[in-house]
């Protein structure tokens, strides 16, 4: 009996602990609107009533919890709500790794949010499902935005003659090179061509054991596509109808052979074959001489290795020129949204030049072509090289079956680089599989 009292006391302590915590927690954002909205939805209230009064739209995103989410929550949303008194915005930060699963589950239950900030490679898939609103039909002023944004970033929203979203931010990968290692190995400046890249690698290799010329995390599209494109190859034909003759074409083959040579010579960090690589640590500790990185790299890296001497340069050029890969996010609206007009207002707000430029200050590269001329961008320490690279950067195949397409050539590239299959077996086979996926 005594012991069970102890147990009860313990439970009591835990509960009161929870209450004390609750009491000293900072005041949380009022949720009454969200709750009323939720109850309204559960009770199947007619939506007209909700429209007439104040409406709440839900916006799911993967902004970083440290800087970007507070900017959205504490600065942008209050501004938007002040200028749109009838619209409340409820932002929901979702960890990137779990975003797809949470969203797919919500779609299956008919409870998708009004808007999401989606990785550009997901949009065609969601559009193909019929989950998204075609914005070019829904927004009468769509062409204004269509003309204002970078075409490469816009293209990621296109499927079956419609645009299902607008780009929100963009990025690409540029060559990051280690000046300390370059100096030690006698490499003169960043390589601008594939030949120079190879020469640099020979010199780096001479530095000794455990020194790598280049590193990347695997053979997925984000890693290999810049090489394929720069060598003049491609994954599919321009109309995205077939991969045969492209993914196993001579230029793509040259790109893969180049990468395989890097692996075989020991220029490439072996992490590309599996297990990935701690590229930032290796770069900072002078084990890796070159990596490809996006605009998030400089600020974070400066925190880790404040004194590191490094430079940024374009992707080395091959037969196709210096071509990198477009990344970034789009904003898309769901068919399941009950407040499409209000959601469209928020899209307009997020794409306004003022908001776009302020996002750039937080590290999100703008998608507005006009913003390039602005002081914010012109005076920025490193956006210039990324924008230069974006001029030729290409988007990964915008197709509903993208996830499977990528998986197919990721595996094929991996087995070719590991030496377990010939190029023809691996990438030729992958091309045939992808032909089938494209035909569906």
């Amino acid at each position, binding site marked *: *009996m005594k*012991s*069970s009292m*102890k*147990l009860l006391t*313990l*439970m009591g302590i*835990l*509960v009161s*602990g*929870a*209450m004390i*915590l*609750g009491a*000293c*927690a*900072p005041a*949380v*954002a009022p*949720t009454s609107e*969200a*709750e009323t909205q*939720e109850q309204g939805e*559960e009770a199947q209230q007619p939506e007209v009533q909700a429209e007439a009064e104040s409406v709440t739209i*839900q916006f799911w995103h*993967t902004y*970083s*919890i*440290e800087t970007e*989410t507070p900017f959205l929550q504490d600065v942008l949303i209050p501004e938007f709500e002040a200028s749109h008194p009838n619209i409340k915005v*409820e*932002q*929901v*930060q*979702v*960890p*990137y*790794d*779990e975003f797809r*699963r*949470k969203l797919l*589950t*919500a779609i*299956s*239950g*008919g*409870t998708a*949010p009004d808007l999401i900030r989606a990785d550009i490679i997901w949009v065609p898939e969601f559009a193909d499902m019929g989950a998204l609103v075609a914005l070019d039909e829904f927004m009468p002023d769509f062409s204004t935005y269509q003309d204002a944004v970078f075409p490469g970033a816009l293209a990621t929203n296109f499927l079956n003659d419609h645009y299902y979203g607008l780009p929100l931010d963009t990025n690409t990968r540029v060559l990051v090179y280690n000046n300390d290692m370059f100096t030690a190995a006698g490499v003169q400046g960043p390589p601008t061509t594939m030949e120079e890249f190879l020469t640099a690698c020979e010199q780096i290799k001479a530095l000794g054991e455990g020194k790598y010329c280049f590193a990347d995390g695997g053979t997925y599209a984000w890693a290999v596509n810049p090489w394929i494109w720069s060598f003049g190859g491609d994954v599919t034909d321009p109309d995205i109808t077939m991969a045969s003759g492209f993914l196993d074409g001579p230029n793509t083959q040259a790109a893969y052979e180049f990468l395989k040579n890097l692996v075989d010579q020991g220029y490439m960090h072996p992490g590309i074959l599996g297990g990935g690589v*701690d590229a*930032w*640590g290796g770069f*900072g500790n002078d084990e890796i001489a070159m990596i490809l990185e*996006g605009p*998030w*790299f400089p600020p*974070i*890296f400066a*925190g*880790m290795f404040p004194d590191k001497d490094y430079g940024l340069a374009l992707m080395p050029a091959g037969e196709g020129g210096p071509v990198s890969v477009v990344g970034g996010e789009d904003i898309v609206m769901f068919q399941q949204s009950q407040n499409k007009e209000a959601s469209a207002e928020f899209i307009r707000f997020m794409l306004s030049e003022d908001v776009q430029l302020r996002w750039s200050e937080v590290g999100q590269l703008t998608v507005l072509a006009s913003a390039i001329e602005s002081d914010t961008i012109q005076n920025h320490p490193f956006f210039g090289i990324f924008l230069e690279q974006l001029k030729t950067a290409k988007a990964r195949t915008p197709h509903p079956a993208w996830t499977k397409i990528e998986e197919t050539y990721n595996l094929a590239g991996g087995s070719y680089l590991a030496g377990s299959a010939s190029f023809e077996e691996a990438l030729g086979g992958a091309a045939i599989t992808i032909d089938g996926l494209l035909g569906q």
Partner: protein
Amino acid sequence: MGQKTSSMGAATMFRYLILIGGAIIMVVPFLWMVSTSFKEYAYVIEFPPKLIPEAPTLNNFVEAWTTGQFQVYFKNSMIVAVISVVLAVLISAMMAYAFARFRFPGKEILFFSILLLLMVPNIIGIIPQFLLAKALGLRNSLFGLILFYVATSLPLNTFLLRGFFETLPRELEDAMLIDGANYFTIFTRMVLPLSKPALATVSIFSLLGFWDEYILALTFIDDQTKRTLPIAIASFHGQHGTDWGLVFAASLIAMIPIVALYIVLQRYFTAGLTGAIKG
């Protein structure tokens, strides 16, 4: 093995040596985590690990505790975990008692089908569970999470408790029945008090599961004020790079209640064990 006064000295030294060696292997990753949590800008984990970082700082703990709504999530987790454990233990004890003490048609089939559930991988159930939560209006509700958690923990708890209840002396119960007590009195006055060790064990096992649960919590809850702690920790994982110092600091804060409870309960149920059961 039993205590032996003759084996003091070299043999005991040897035992301690092995035990301490083993403990080091068990604890090194944890120490590594602690050390990293005192380091700023730990996007890359230092290797080889340093026990004491160069410029130790408490900033990660402060930042974890104050970023977003960490404290709200902590409180939510406390509420969910405590209520879930109490309900899970009570409900499974009732079920276990019925299985242990009564005869009724279909008993063993029912018991076995509950056990089968232990063996079915539950990740695939996430979409049906979500549809159910939506249909019952349990989305965005801590109460909804509690119901799912309790249900998930029922099979193992019932299984463990039934085994224990069957070892309780039947004579006591018969005596109470003769004295005019009903089964509910017997359950609350005799069975539960005598079963403290078992109840403590299922409590800690259940709690471990609830405290870390992530998939249901993330999927069911859109309302940011109703999220639980594992989601707060996952939110510190960035899309392009993760500050591990921050993640580790947040995880360490989250571990405090669990470690505290474990230390308290382990004494409790070991003590209860030798007394109540063997007596």
